[in-house]
């Protein structure tokens, strides 16, 4: 079963959420990352996500499998966009179902943090001044975009 997916097109969060809900679920938590109009003091007009698809799918699955081991959750999913995105578009979604809310919140937070640190996806930002750049953040949370 695939818990992690890359999507070249906008995707339906409601359908993904519905896949996680059943009679055992007492708590559901989700995170949505959206494209905002600024980063590190610069006005952003849009961005592109590029992935090393083969490895991103393997590593994304690994993150979600590890989350299911580490936390008392029933299941989890993550979908990350690739390609060109406009301001206000959904970039990444994480959903977690659990019997209780504590594990759902904790696993959701852990998954998005691990995805951002481990999965080979890169953000290319376009700026209002006309230039554009790849974001290659420094390790240990030094990235002001965190």
């Amino acid at each position, binding site marked *: 079963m695939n818990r992690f997916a890359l999507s070249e097109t906008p995707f339906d969060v409601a359908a993904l959420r519905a896949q996680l809900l059943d009679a055992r679920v007492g708590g559901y938590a989700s995170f949505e990352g959206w494209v905002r109009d600024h980063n590190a003091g610069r006005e952003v007009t849009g961005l592109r996500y590029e992935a*090393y698809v083969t*490895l991103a799918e*393997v590593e994304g699955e690994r993150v979600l499998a590890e989350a299911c081991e580490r936390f008392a959750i029933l299941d989890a999913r993550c979908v990350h966009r690739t390609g060109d995105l406009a301001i206000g578009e959904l970039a990444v979604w994480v959903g977690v179902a659990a019997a209780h809310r504590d594990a759902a919140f904790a696993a959701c937070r852990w998954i998005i943090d691990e995805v951002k640190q*481990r999965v*080979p996806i890169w953000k290319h930002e376009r700026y209002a001044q006309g230039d554009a750049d790849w974001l*290659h953040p420094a*390790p240990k949370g030094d990235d002001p975009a965190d």
Partner: protein
Amino acid sequence: MSARVTVLYFASLRDVAEIDHETFETSAPDLRVLYLELRARYGFPLSVDRLRVAVDGEFARWEDAPRDGSEIAFIPPVSGG
């Protein structure tokens, strides 16, 4: 001993190299030396300690020798999410 390898370039590495992959013979003893040779050729700004390396779609070690017929990717710091 040389190995014929395909190297994939992503994100800023692709922009600097101006290609997304290339196939060539290398006699580099390990993946670290291979990257250093490519860095010297293309002028990649990223040092080895900022990268990870993958072989055939799985993370690998810098001290691994390039395998004949393998696909090697140097992974710049990621920025998904």
